[in-house]
């Protein structure tokens, strides 16, 4: 904390800042920056991310007898057993603040890599800062496809982006036919008017058109509306087979409650994770969540099947009181990947770490994710991700698709 105090004193007395020098890490410590919203409307996301990343930090720094990436060694052996240390910064969902914090972490805290940022808008700016300073940036969960199309060399994303997610949803719908169920005859889109919602809906419309599935309602709603009654009415009157919903927690709660009150029961509700998957959502809507289907890139029922997943989940749960979810699992994984790359590079230099990341090829078994492997393409995107579809049963999401990961039978239609 001494460093921050230095900054405070130094920056308030502006003239005194001449003497302020970046206070780089001690020799045996390797710093990684994590930029999340810790205050403002997204604060909850940041708080949970911190627990996940702290869990990752522990895994790397302590010795665990687990078959997971960077678990067995205490610290990074290639750097003399140096420990990693995560430095957190708050971006308040504001790109300008994300930029300032990224620059601060790099120049003052001496971080060798960045992890973040949940919001794709902030990730867009942070990825550019990372490029300028030649420090690798792993977008842990920001999922806008535009991010890996900027032609940046220091940008990496191990998880899927919105197009892959949406694609999986449609593949899942295709599979309904194969399993002898009635094909999806029509879909209605329900999505918030943010980057997340509009990008998702754009891809959904493309894929629906490619499959000739009619989109009978296209409801873009204002995020954080006091009421969604009219929106639900519009959906209901279009009488779709399936609603594809993309929302953050607050609207997800309101949507499901309102749909229940207004008696709107389509055959299926397929959600773009996020709000529909949050513990706060599940607590708020209770049994109304049963039957909801969500895409996911983490399968919580893995924890029961793979002991090493159970162990890290327990560590995380002890801190946060929650199980890993789609976001927190990827944040944890991002720490592993970053630590592995630093170790392989055996260097604290950004370009060396970047090259190590670019050359990385880790089998999926070494992660807690149901992925084939982690291997980044030219654009920094890992295309060996696997996606699963989960269905909520008794307040818990369980994997129902694809078959090899399924832990429970799909209920379809839900109404």
């Amino acid at each position: 904390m001494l460093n921050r105090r230095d900054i405070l004193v130094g920056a308030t007395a502006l003239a005194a800042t001449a003497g302020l020098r970046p206070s780089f890490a001690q020799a045996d410590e390797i710093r990684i920056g994590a930029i999340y919203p810790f205050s403002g409307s997204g604060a909850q996301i940041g708080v949970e991310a911190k627990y996940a990343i702290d869990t990752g930090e522990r895994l790397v720094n302590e010795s665990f007898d687990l078959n997971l990436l960077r678990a067995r060694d205490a610290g990074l052996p290639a750097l003399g057993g140096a420990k990693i240390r995560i430095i957190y910064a708050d971006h308040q969902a504001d790109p300008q603040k994300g930029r300032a914090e990224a620059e601060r972490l790099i120049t003052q805290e001496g971080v060798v890599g960045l992890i973040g940022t949940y919001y794709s808008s902030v990730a867009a700016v942070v990825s550019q800062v990372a490029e300028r300073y030649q420090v690798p940036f792993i977008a842990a969960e920001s999922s806008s496809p535009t991010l890996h199309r900027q032609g940046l060399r220091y940008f990496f994303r191990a998880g899927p982006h919105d197009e892959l997610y949406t694609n999986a949803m449609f593949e899942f719908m295709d599979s309904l036919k194969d399993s002898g169920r009635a094909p999806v005859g029509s879909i209605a889109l329900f999505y918030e008017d943010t980057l997340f919602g509009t990008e998702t809906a754009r891809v959904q419309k493309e894929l629906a058109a490619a499959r000739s599935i009619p989109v009978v309602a296209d409801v873009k709603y204002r995020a954080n509306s006091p009421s969604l009654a009219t929106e639900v009415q519009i959906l209901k009157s279009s009488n779709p087979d399936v609603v594809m919903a993309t929302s953050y927690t607050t609207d997800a709660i309101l949507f499901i409650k309102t749909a229940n009150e207004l008696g709107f029961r389509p055959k299926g509700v397929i959600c773009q994770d996020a709000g529909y998957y949050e513990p706060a959502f599940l607590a708020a809507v209770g049994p109304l969540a049963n039957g909801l289907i969500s895409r996911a890139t983490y399968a919580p029922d893995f924890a029961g099947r793979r002991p090493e997943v159970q162990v890290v989940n327990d560590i995380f749960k002890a801190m946060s009181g929650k199980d890993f979810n789609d976001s927190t699992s990827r944040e944890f994984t991002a720490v592993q990947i970053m630590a592995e790359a630093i170790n392989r590079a055996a260097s604290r230099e950004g370009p060396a770490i970047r090259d190590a990341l670019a050359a990385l090829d880790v089998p999926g078994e070494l992660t807690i994710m149901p992925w084939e492997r982690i291997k980044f393409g030219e654009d920094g995107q890992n295309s060996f991700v696997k996606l699963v579809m989960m269905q909520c049963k008794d307040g818990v999401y369980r994997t129902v698709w694809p078959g090899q990961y399924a832990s429970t039978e799909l209920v379809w239609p839900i109404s």
Partner: protein
Amino acid sequence: MAQPQTIPAPITAFTSRRRRQLAVALAVALALALLPLAVADVFVMNILVLTILFASLSQSWNILGGYCGQISLGHAVYFGIGAYVTVALFVDFGILPWFGMLAGAAIAVVLALALGYPCFRLAGHYYTIATIVIAEAALLLVANAEWTGGAVGLQLPFAPDSWATLQFGRTKLPYYYLALGLAVATWIVSWVIEDTRAGYWWRAVNSDIAAAQSLGVNVFRSKMAASAVSAFFTAVAGGVYAFFVSYIDPTSVMSFHISLLISLPAVLGGIGTLWGPALGAIVLIPMGELTRSYFGGTGLGTNLIVYGVLVMAISLLRPQGLVSLVHLFVPRRA
């Protein structure tokens, strides 16, 4: 009426006070111009750029809100227009930001004049609420429009350092001097306004509309003129901000939060004063950045608490603004 042969004493005192203000301003500007020589740190530079940029924004706001007494909480609309027009012209048509900013400012001025017709008939809180509503409506329109990139926003393509395209990777210096230039320009405009007929009229409108009308002041036109000047500089600053951040989306340049950041420094520093906006910005912007950096990482609401208490304390204890503190140390002359 015959002109007096000698200038009465109060007027000379006034003139010398104005000369002194100008001298102080030049000294401050010079010191600020040299400051980067002493500051190497990017984070501190970042805070400096923001502080000076918001000082100039608040100075522009003060022209309408302070001198003319029209409390706008919707200046984000001009800021956002400046940002969007500048970036969109550059990204879509390759028009350099220097021209883009002027285009944005021109559009902002036209909008300010168009909005003036319905708004300036509104009094007090009605005007303020109307400005909030207009900015929120603009936010909705931008978030749902095609050319603005909608909710996705607009990102500047990654490009090498250049003064022409206003893109710089690591150095903050160019943005610093741009912001400083803007701050000096808005200060000088304010300084000039304080001693022109328009300035007197505006302040007359502020203190007593009925009295101003009886003196023959065209209240409506005064408000329109102040609004146009204010919108112009706000939009230019919006353009600078957009290139400084390199990415804009509706919430980051057009939300109520921006309107507040534009008005707060002037209000807390000293509304309707020459130095209030700068003083307010010097306190508020580093406060906001440092409380976030210092307390924000905890996930607790400490930064909001500190910021909220500060705003309350200054409003209650220094209703004339922080600028009134200066007179505690420097006795007011003349």
